[in-house]
């Protein structure tokens, strides 16, 4: 009987077109859109070369420090080139600024640089910082040279070689005193999380499948349910074979998503593909149990049940960062208990810990176990609700 019901559940599920659209095609469409829209974001976060203008007057050309520094910073040979410089007169510069083709311009007035920007912004902040750095280096050189000269004078040497002092001080400023070591994790890409929430959504959407399967066998939902219920078969057998069928359909959907994202969209899931598959299977189980739970404890028509399921799933996905990753972080930071109970978060957090923490699997296993407990509790409650149900009238 188990396999008989299994076979027909499988058939009815696969032939339900809207259902197949939402569980199979919709995630694929979303994956395609994500891939198109996010493919460029990561590159944009890095620094671009900034277009600026410099007022080309005699004061600029006479000032060696500024002139040389900006020459180096805008030189084509310099790998760490920051600026692309236009040397123009004052009028042209303000025209360029208004047209938006430069981020700002620099003018030397009384040996002090003055910056003119249209608005505040990051490019502008960088220009300001770089100019400040040059100005401060200039002041360091001045201070040190004065000190050196003072030393020479106090030691009684009045025959001062200014050239060599200047060179010595400049050499001193060129020495690199900075030792920084970057220990950040290399996996900082944002877009992967979007795909993870998409997998989480697909897993939880599977709940519609199990809910449909449950509805089919409930006497108060359909005529077929009535017939199934009066048949001399254990409820357990019916329920579990229907659930098993919907689980299989869901796994087919998930594997389609994985195949599509890996081979067509070339998404790199990293070395942990085995763990990722395990997590998505657990996630599907959670989705399945959520669908079963809502299908069995609510006594309402099919549309209302679907509404409740979709609303719950979407709200869970929203909290787990589907529509903006900051949301998950805000919840994690302020009310962590919510995401500890939210299956969507368990799935995305599991993926996140795999991706970001790599070898340290504690957080991953915590999420897997949470998903298992979540599914077990919901299935047990549904089972208690469904068994020995009697109807006085339908």
């Amino acid at each position, binding site marked *: 009987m188990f396999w008989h019901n299994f076979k027909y559940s499988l058939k009815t599920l696969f032939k339900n077109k809207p259902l197949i659209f939402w569980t199979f095609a919709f995630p694929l469409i979303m994956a395609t859109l994500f891939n198109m829209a996010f493919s460029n974001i990561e590159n944009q976060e890095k620094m671009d070369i900034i277009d600026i203008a410099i007022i080309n007057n005699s004061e600029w050309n006479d000032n060696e420090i500024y002139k040389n520094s900006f020459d180096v910073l805008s030189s084509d040979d310099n790998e760490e080139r920051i600026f692309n410089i236009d040397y123009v007169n004052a009028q042209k510069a303000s025209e360029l600024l208004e047209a938006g083709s430069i981020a700002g311009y620099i003018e030397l007035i009384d040996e002090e640089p*003055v910056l003119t920007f249209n608005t*505040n912004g990051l490019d502008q902040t*960088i220009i300001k910082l770089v100019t400040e750095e040059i100005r401060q280096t200039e002041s*360091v050189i001045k201070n040190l040279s004065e000190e050196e000269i003072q030393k020479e004078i106090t030691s009684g040497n009045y025959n001062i070689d200014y050239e060599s002092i200047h060179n010595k001080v400049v050499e001193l400023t060129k020495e*690199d005193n900075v030792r920084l070591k*970057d220990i950040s994790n290399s996996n900082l890409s944002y877009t992967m999380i979007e795909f993870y929430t998409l997998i989480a959504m697909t897993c939880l959407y599977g709940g519609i499948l199990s809910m449909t399967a449950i509805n089919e066998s409930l006497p108060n939902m359909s005529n077929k349910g009535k017939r199934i219920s009066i048949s001399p078969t254990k409820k357990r057998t019916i329920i579990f074979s229907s659930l098993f069928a919907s689980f299989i359909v869901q796994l087919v959907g998930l594997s389609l998503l994985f195949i599509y994202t890996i081979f067509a969209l070339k998404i790199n899931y990293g070395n942990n593909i085995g763990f990722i598959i395990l997590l998505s299977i657990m996630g599907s189980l959670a989705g399945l149990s959520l669908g079963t739970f809502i299908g069995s404890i609510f006594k309402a028509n099919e549309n209302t049940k679907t509404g409740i399921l979709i609303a719950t799933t979407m709200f869970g996905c929203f909290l787990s960062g589907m529509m*903006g990753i900051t949301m998950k972080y805000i919840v994690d930071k302020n009310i962590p208990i919510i995401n500890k109970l939210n299956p969507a978060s368990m799935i995305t957090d599991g993926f996140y810990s795999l991706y*970001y923490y790599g070898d340290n699997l504690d957080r991953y296993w915590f999420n897997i176990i949470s998903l298992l407990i979540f599914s077990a509790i919901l299935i047990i409650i549904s089972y208690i609700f469904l068994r020995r149900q009697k109807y006085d009238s339908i």
Partner: protein
Amino acid sequence: MIVFKTFLKVLRKNLPIVILYTTILLVFGISNMSTSENNMNFVASKPNIYIVNNDKSDGITKNLIDYISNNTNVINIENNEEKINDALFYRDVNYVIYIPKNYNNDFMAGKNPEIKIKSLNDYGANLTEMLLERYIQVAGIYRKSIIDENELILKINDTLKNDVKVNITSKLDTNSLDKASYYYSFASYSILACLILVICLILSSFNEEKIRKRTIISSTNYKKHNRILLLANFCYAFILWSLYVIVSFILVGKIMFSSYGLLYMLNSFIFTICATTIALLVGSLITNKGAINGIVNVIALGSSFLCGAFVPMELLPDSILKIAHILPTYYFIKTNEILKTLEIVEFNSLKPIFLNMLIIICFSIIFIILSNIVSKKKRKIA
């Protein structure tokens, strides 16, 4: 009037959908406009950082921390490696600085101690790194000739306070304009989804075979019937548009009362008309009620993703933007982007905006013609 009444009746049934998409708009509108760390908001030029100090807080260490914190926003998080890593990943902080034990003494002894950092490698992180490097560099140079710690700190601060004078020419309230553009671009999704979904559902109720047969044999002229239906649809669209405009006044504020606000409203009004014509076309094409939900989401999500309603246009790859040219949403969002940086409101600077609006109107006309052709073909029932 009977047609109109029926329209309202069906609309009332579908009110939850309108409420759902409006709530989505509001939630995202508010949450994205109020957080400073989001991508589109380049105005916040102070990077967010976190400092882990393993040294005693005095001398050079304290001075370094003071200098960095004066020029950045130090974010308040728990001092716990996992929390710090999470904060970095979710872009809550751009840069983390770990000051090692005994930094102060080692530095004064000339050991040039190493500082560990964690970096997102984005703008904010690079800015912080520049600040940090500069401090260490200046301090390192002076340390070679100054032995006394207090004198050294004085000298460093004296040098580092040499800042540069900055003039800002624009009088634009870029922050509000950013908000308004973001709101209206995002609204394109809600407008499209709400209009197409509801209008399709209503039209499909009118197009049910039994009801259509009854309408056809009734004494009402079918032209009149269609006209009232069209009018009712545009009424609904107008109400929806007004709702979103009112919300924008609340969320964005003062700038909406200026000529900019007027342009945003005009632009979104024309887009709403276009969305209504799209809805009519889709409604005349689809007969299966079950399919409506899917198709609407594909159209609304697809055009919003491709045209930059969710991910800002400047971050989209060029190839995607080229494809987006065939969608009316592109021209709508493009106008919002232009408005964001528009310096002077006069006929010449507004030309590209009017051109975009004209293109959207052309799209609407094409959609109307197409839906007329389709519905004419479908009029006969066997």
